[in-house]
């Protein structure tokens, strides 16, 4: 399967089909999740209106971890099988994951202040999320600092794979340590603890965030492939004459 999708031309054809519906699904899901959370869900009996922040915080936090798992998996494929498209996928996921981790931390702080009385506490869940933000930033720093592209990709892949140890820590931090953060209330043994009148915008919003992530990862991968083609074309033009179809063919084949 990996070798099937290793062909950039095949990927570009697939991406052309997937990009528009993912974009529409993403933006629509986010709009419905936000609108539903703000205007069409009941207030919580304990938190009152503050519960509306759940509809922006929880999907961002879920996506932050999902994006990291995606980046670590793509890094593993890139590292083991030298799969250039997997490397492009990991590279594309990093800034998106970092942005959503930042968003989860920021919306969490805004929710924490009225509920806990503090924007920030050195709680296991919050701290492990902060560590994940640093892991994303570290991954991007390695890619930017190391001048040799292939070496940067391998070092960044190692960073991403080692950092994956933080994912179960994030997930189980609320069970392993005494925490101000509430335990899992959606994906837990015995079913969701959230009433369906409050659950639907959360799930639609999370689906929207995920589609949005998929959309922008694919767009960034397309951009990355174009950049690699540009670099090769520039090198070949500097070194000798090359025809347009030949240039395109060679660029694709080299990826």
């Amino acid at each position, binding site marked *: 399967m990996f070798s099937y999708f290793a062909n950039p031309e095949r990927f570009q054809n697939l991406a052309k089909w997937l990009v528009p519906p993912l974009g529409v699904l993403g933006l629509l899901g986010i709009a419905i999740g936000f609108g539903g959370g703000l205007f069409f869900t009941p207030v919580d009996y304990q938190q009152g209106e503050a519960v509306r922040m759940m509809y922006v915080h929880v999907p961002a936090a879920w996506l932050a971890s999902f994006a990291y798992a995606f980046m670590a998996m793509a890094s593993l494929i890139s590292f083991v099988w030298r799969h250039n498209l997997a490397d492009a996928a990991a590279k594309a996921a990093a800034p998106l994951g970092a942005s959503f981790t930042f968003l989860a931390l*920021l919306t969490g702080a805004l929710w924490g202040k009225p509920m806990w009385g503090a924007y920030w506490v050195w709680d296991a869940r919050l701290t492990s999320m902060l560590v994940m933000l640093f892991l994303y930033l570290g991954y991007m720093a390695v890619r930017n600092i190391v001048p040799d592209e292939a070496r940067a990709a391998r070092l960044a892949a190692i960073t991403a794979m080692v950092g994956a140890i933080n994912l179960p820590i994030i997930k189980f931090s609320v069970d392993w340590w005494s925490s101000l953060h509430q335990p899992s209330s959606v994906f837990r043994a015995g079913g969701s603890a959230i009433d369906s009148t409050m659950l639907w915008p959360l799930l639609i919003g999370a689906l929207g965030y995920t589609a949005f992530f998929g959309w922008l990862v694919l767009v960034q991968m397309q951009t990355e492939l174009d950049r690699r083609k*540009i670099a090769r074309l520039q090198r070949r033009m500097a070194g000798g004459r090359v025809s347009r179809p030949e240039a395109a063919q060679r660029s694709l084949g080299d990826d």
Partner: protein
Amino acid sequence: MTELLDMGKYAGFIWASYGVSIVVILGLMVRILGQRKAAKVQLRALEDKAESANSQ
């Protein structure tokens, strides 16, 4: 309408959390789609340049 928008004593926190979420989402979208467009334009220009260089 006013009743619908009234978030009580937590309004500042609620609107701020939705506001930053929208800003980040739109920011990512604009940046990534902008980079895609710029790369496409640059690639097309280079391909045209390569073609005209070869035809001379």
